[in-house]
């Protein structure tokens, strides 16, 4: 293998691919990145046996195709620290030579044949969506996914596609985030998959151009995603995702409408006086708007007033401010909060594409 490569592009590719690699693994080979040079392209591959990524770097001049396998961390830092426009990569026996203008590195390579095969995107996608829309949907849901729940199925975001409709749901048992939108073209076949949080974080970090489109294909226990630069393969979270339709209340009797920014700021200010054992803030909706209050015994109290348009009778309800902030950060300009009783869930809506159910706290 012998090639000359645009260094910043290679550096970005290595940064993206490094996110796949787990630092602690009993298999050192999984800490390597595989470099494959074809006639016009260099492909980087990394895999943790659950999630894999191939990243195509096209800013290369390949003079001799070939392959090598090197420790990803080494190569990444070499390429990152170098300041040249281009780097020359060349293999000789077990060695990978990386040459810049004033620098020459030799890295010992591993046997490429020992690297496990990584699933690739083959055949037609089930559906195609603009990448920006998909990443936006991930942003609006992934924060609500459980991280290490014993209820395994909620440790991911559920994707569901049916005809033109595509929707995403995540919950950690205390709140639930939903988002959905219509695709231009109906999916080839309906499907649903619970996608691990790690995969979604990889996807969200990928650089994309405004017009980029992503291909999605579901295989048995495997989801494949293809962007113009990268292909991600991911195992799915097994199990049955809870029936989220059931937990979205439809019988709320009160609705408050607020400016997202003002509400978010008020929640932040009120949350300053919470503690580990007094996490909650009280939201008092009344004629004159919304009063947020909090109290830490023996330390102090907070009271913040903000505007809110309430439909229905006044209500006091407690929430964990972190749960509110998580959602408010991804809301559009205005939000509505629907409530029924202080012990019943609240529903936060912003635009037609976002809905968030959160359970109240029983304030002491």
């Amino acid at each position, binding site marked *: 293998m012998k090639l000359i490569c645009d260094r910043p592009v290679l550096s970005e590719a290595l940064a993206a691919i490094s996110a796949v690699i787990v630092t602690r693994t009993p298999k050192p080979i999984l800490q390597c990145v595989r470099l494959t040079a074809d006639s016009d392209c260099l492909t980087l591959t990394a895999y943790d046996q659950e999630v894999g990524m191939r990243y195509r770097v096209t800013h290369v001049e390949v003079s001799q195709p070939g392959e090598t396998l090197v420790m990803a961390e080494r190569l990444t830092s070499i390429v990152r620290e170098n300041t040249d426009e281009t780097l020359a990569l060349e293999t000789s026996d077990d060695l990978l030579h990386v040459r810049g203008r004033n620098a020459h590195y030799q890295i010992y390579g591993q046997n490429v044949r020992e690297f496990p095969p990584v699933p690739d995107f083959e055949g037609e996608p089930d559906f195609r969506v603009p990448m920006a829309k998909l990443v936006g949907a991930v942003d609006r849901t992934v924060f609500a996914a459980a991280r290490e729940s014993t*209820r395994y199925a909620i440790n991911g975001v559920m994707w569901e596609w049916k005809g033109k409709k595509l929707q995403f749901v995540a*919950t950690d*048992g205390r709140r639930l985030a939903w988002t959905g939108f219509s695709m231009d073209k109906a999916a080839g076949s309906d499907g649903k998959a619970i996608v691990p949080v790690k995969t979604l974080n990889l996807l969200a970090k990928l650089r994309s151009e405004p017009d980029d489109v992503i291909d999605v294909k579901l295989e048995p226990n495997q989801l494949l995603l293809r962007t113009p630069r990268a292909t991600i393969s991911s195992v799915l979270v097994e199990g049955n995702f809870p029936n989220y339709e059931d937990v979205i209340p439809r019988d709320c009797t009160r609705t408050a409408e607020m400016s997202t920014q003002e509400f978010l700021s008020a929640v932040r200010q009120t949350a300053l006086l919470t503690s580990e*054992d007094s996490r909650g803030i009280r939201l008092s909706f009344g004629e004159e708007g919304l009063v947020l209050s909090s109290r830490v015994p*023996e330390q102090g109290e907070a009271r913040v007033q903000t505007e809110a348009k309430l439909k229905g009778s006044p209500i006091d309800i407690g929430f964990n401010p972190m749960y509110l902030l998580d959602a408010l950060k991804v809301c559009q300009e205005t939000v509505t909060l629907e409530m029924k009783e202080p012990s019943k869930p609240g529903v936060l809506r912003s635009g037609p594409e976002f809905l968030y159910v*959160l*359970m109240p706290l029983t304030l002491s």
Partner: protein
Amino acid sequence: MPHIQRLDPVLVNKIAAGEVIERPASVVKELMENALDAGATRIDVTLEDGGTTLISVSDDGGGIEPDELPLAVAPHATSKIRTVDDLNAIGTMGFRGEALASIGSISRLRIVSRRADRLEAAGLECSDGRVGDVTPCAAPPGTTVEVRNLFFNVPARRKYLRTIPAELSHVTEQIARIALARPDVTISQTHQGRAVRRLPATTDRRARIGDFFGPELANDLIGFRRQEPDLRIEGWFAPPAASRASGKWQYVFLNGRFIRDRDLSGFVLREAFRGLIEPARYPVVFLFLTADPASYDVNVHPTKIEVRWRDAGRVKSQVLGVLRETLLSHDLTPSLRTQPAAAGGTTSADTVANMSALAERLKALGPPTAGWAGHSGDASSVGAGASSIPAAPSDRRPGRQPHEHEFPLSHESAESAHRASAIPPESRFDAAAMIGRDRLPRDETRIVAAPPDAMPIPAARRDEGPVPHALPGRALQIHNTYLVCETPDGLLIVDQHALHERILYEELKARMTRGPLESQRLLLPETLDASPEQLAALEGAGELLLRLGLEIEPFGPRSVVVRACPSLLGDLNVRELTADLLDKLADSERRDPEAIIHAVLDMMACKAAVKAGDRLTPEAIEALLSRRHLVERSSNCPHGRPTTLRLSLRDLERQFKRT
């Protein structure tokens, strides 16, 4: 069918002996108690083969008239009580008039006694229940009882005697019980012709404890005393770090008699030391109670080891109260032992010596420029300490051992004196002086930064010995597990998880007193399996669960559903907590809600605390250490493991051979 007939008196005595005399130790106990009842000031116990061959107890008591000797070995004959009224106010160790008769029926017994006003002694032998004649003989005033070949005529009992060392240890235990109860009596113990133990009479019980168990134990003892209207409580306990694997080291005495009270030694001691001692370990406690004989009944058990209180609940709560108060007012941080235990000399004493040495050095440097405003006993808070009011050196009082309370003898003021002396004035003053000289410029901001209103409890009760331990200087995290910080007299090593756990536990506990915990309702209720017992236990636990911020309901015949859990658990595992809680609910026989709450808080604190291996930011370290002194019993985690070890300058100097 055999006919019913009256039993031969010898047989009756043998049967009675079965109850009273189990082994040589029982004989020693009965004979020593007789000696005490006879007004002895000296008791000599001589044994052969652990008492199986010979037990001889001689005293310098009042002696027995020669013509009363045959009565002494007759059943139900005694000089100790006469009427039924006497039974309600027993002031002697024995009263049943059974012991000598019983012993005489199962051994070869010889009594030699001389009243002080007589010129000659009289002797009497009794073997296998047959009483011989009274014969004149020579002996010093007092009584000597010799018991040979115990159980020679009761093969079944003889068979169950254990090895000589085992029997000897039982005898020693009995001697200990009497020796501790009566430090005013000189006691000696001889075994196989060798003097094993010689305990000179003393007025100081603590000295007697030291004589018996060795100075290492005695020097660390922490004293307590309280006078209640009809109960006087006094005693000593060893710091929790000196706990034992067996409950044998808990001595409870009532009016000079060793008693075994399951409530006192079980419940009260366990409760008082809860969280300070690991499970399955027992505190070392010497508890001496003085009560009106009419307030309890000792005639419950033939060996009188059990008593029945007229008002057991009050006794329990009074003892618990004084123990708790004493524990709270002491710095229980164990010292790191840098010397092998065998080297003797205890670290706490060294610390004291070290403190006074430093004090001397400081005094030589001139009067301190700043110090603590409060005089000894003044409830000045930590915040007030920062006010830098110069303190006159004349405030200094003579040194005291931090572990010892010296009480005024008038009991009326005992309690207030107890509080006042909770902080040893000298060490506190000196500590302040050290801050004043070397450390104030740097530490002042930190002291001031601690808002006084964040410490609702008077510092005087909270302070643990030398104050600056609560205000550590620089701290260093090592192995992401321990925090090491400098103190004026050395350094502290803190287990970050144990300390955080203890702090969270105390905060939770304090939080519980202010009302139910804040509760996060669940969007997806958790269901989990439950046994019928657990479901049944759940029914009565509604209020308890509410206080904990939990909402758990039965869900079908074999499962429960959790609808809400305490918010401070964050993302912690609700299922695990609930499963543990159900176990606790179903298992606890008495369903003591406090014990369950304790267990649950314990679980919560453990799960929420920083773990060993968690890297802490300097701010987090400072926050953790600064909360240390706000918490009661910060020296141990809720499971009783120590949170903090102390290494004094003196220890370091010794290790580096600087002294």
